């Protein structure tokens, strides 16, 4: 029974591991796309083509090798992103661009369909079944105008919320965050004298330590009560009353006195030139057990 439980536990952990891998691929999302490219950025072959930008919304590197891109919900494995290409390992909070030029022989990042003939873009996990992200392709977009998430990685899948027609295309870079002020700049502008920061931060520090204070106040009270009950049970009420009066200082004084006594007197057992024999306990261990190391003795029938 125990062994079965162990197998179940091990299998569970293995499955959790697989699930974790899938979860990290699930951190990828379709972030922006351009359908008609006539004069926007060129690809590495000097051609103008539509593109799809994916974004790693997590804070860990995600390998998308083996995942799929498709424009056909009936054929989820239309374009497999090749495995073994180091460029398919997407760094945290970074983008990757796929040229939708229907010319996959041009390399990893050229897929086998174009967006002008697509109604939808789907990004599929490496199992070929799980749809990680999908977005409808808008037909009303002008040439060289892309459609993307307002903030990288944020927004609904159907494009109803958090998406917008981009004022300028931003392949392989942040959609709108490039010119954003850093938190430090905002703080200096909003709170030039540091008063808000001081008040907020001190409040949080106090809050954390007040909570600890409250918890340990009651843990202490409970502990004192329990200790008194135990002493009362064993030694009676009088001893318990007396014990309560004893402070940590008394115990410290007793301990110090005992320590000094044992240092001064010759009664201690660690002395130069005297061999002290301590009893060695042999605890059971499967590593030293004879049951596991010896063959079973043959039985005579």
């Amino acid at each position, binding site marked *: 029974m125990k062994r079965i439980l162990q197998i179940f536990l091990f299998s569970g952990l293995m499955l959790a591991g697989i699930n974790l891998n899938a979860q990290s691929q699930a951190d990828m999302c379709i972030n922006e796309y351009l359908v008609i490219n006539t004069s926007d950025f060129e690809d590495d072959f000097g051609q103008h083509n539509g593109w799809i930008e994916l974004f790693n919304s997590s804070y860990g590197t995600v390998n998308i090798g083996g995942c799929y891109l498709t424009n056909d919900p009936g054929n989820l494995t239309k374009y497999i992103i090749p495995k073994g290409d180091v460029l398919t390992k997407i760094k945290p909070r970074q983008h990757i661009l796929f040229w939708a030029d229907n010319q996959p022989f041009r390399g990893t990042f050229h897929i086998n369909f174009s967006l002008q003939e697509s109604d939808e873009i789907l990004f599929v996990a490496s199992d070929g079944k799980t749809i990680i992200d999908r977005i409808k392709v808008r037909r009303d977009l002008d040439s060289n105008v892309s459609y993307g998430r307002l903030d990288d990685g944020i927004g609904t899948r159907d494009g109803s919320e958090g998406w917008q027609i981009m004022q300028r295309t931003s392949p392989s870079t942040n959609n709108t965050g490039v010119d954003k002020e*850093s*938190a*430090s*700049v905002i*703080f*200096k502008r909003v*709170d*030039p*004298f*540091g*008063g808000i*920061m*001081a008040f*907020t*931060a*001190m409040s*949080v*520090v*106090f*809050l*954390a*330590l*007040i*909570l*600890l*204070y409250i*918890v*340990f*106040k009651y*843990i*202490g009270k409970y*502990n*004192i009560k329990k*200790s008194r009950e135990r002493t009362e049970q064993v030694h009676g009420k009088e001893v318990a009353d007396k014990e309560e009066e*004893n*402070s*940590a*200082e008394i*115990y410290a004084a007793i301990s110090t006195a005992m320590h000094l006594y044992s240092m001064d007197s010759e009664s201690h057992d660690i002395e130069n030139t005297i061999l002290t024999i301590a009893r060695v306990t042999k605890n059971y261990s499967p590593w030293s057990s004879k049951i596991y190391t010896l063959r079973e003795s043959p039985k005579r029938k």
Partner: protein
Amino acid sequence: MENKGVFSLLLDNLTQFLQYTGFANATWGHILMIAIGLVFIYLAIKKDWEPLLLVPIGFGIIIGNIPLFPGLSVGVYEEGSVLNILYQGVQQGWYPPLIFLGIGAMTDFSALISNPKLLLIGAAAQLGIFGAYAIALLLGFSASEAGAIGIIGGADGPTAIFLSSRLAPDLMGAIAVSAYSYMALVPVIQPPVMRLFTTNKERLIRMKPPRAVSQTEKKIFPIVGFLMTAFIVPSGLPLLGMLFFGNLLKESGVTRRLAETARGPLIDVITILIGVTVGCSTQADKFLQVKSVYIFALGALSFVIATAGGVLFVKLINIFLKDGNKINPLIGNAGVSAVPDSARVSNLIGLEYDKTNYLLMHAMGPNVAGVIGSAVAAGILLGFLS
């Protein structure tokens, strides 16, 4: 003819060799920094001021300021050099949490557990951080830089390094040296502030002896303490996690070997590495700037504000406490987390006024609370400003 050729070659080589020597590349900045390093070593050996920190930092300053011919791949800022590799622990911020692991494994929180209201003093003393932050803003530092400078007031070297490596890596050398220097100067900075804000009567307050704390309470403390603080300030996770984990190793009673390693060899190794590399990072061209002077001035000021904050807070809560339960305000300074120096200062000043009033154990409460408080404050600054 041939002889002349050999002589010329020898002369060329010697000239080239001279160009590589420290003498040819020395500047007044290098000489000044080496002198500062020597002063640190002198203070540590002769005056016994934080020798475990000042000897490695002082010698590190000397190492880092040996004038170098650039491109030899030996300087701390030259990628791939030995010193640069060791410096990564500071730059990437993974030495400080390891130091915190050791601190956790050597800290006894029982003074705090027996009288948990002392935790609040540890919170009040963090005022130094935010006081220095506000003044740094007024002096023209950016909010990130001001946050990194302010943390000097937490009187916690590892925390200062951790935060400055995240918020203001360019100022890290000056901030780290300033934090460690002022930690060594706690016995000089704090007493005048403590005397200024207390009356003779207050200094004579005798506190109730702490109760004995059970082992179960000590075991619960790191777990509950971690959960509560980390849930409130997750950005302080590396420091808080390691601090409380180290303490659990100590108190669990079943991981003695791990606790001994954490508070012994591990913390010693990291202290050596952090001290030497922080010292090395103070190369004259990076360190000798007007900003460094400001950082040192703000560091001193933050210690003063933190000490005053702790002492005045004790006076404030004394108003609400009954006679017999009052707290001696001389332990307010211990809210800064320079463990155990600031607690020792409380005890010494207390003994000056009453030869039998030992405040050390009482002061250890706010002192270790200060460690938690400064880690929480660092987490908040990191969360807000990064």
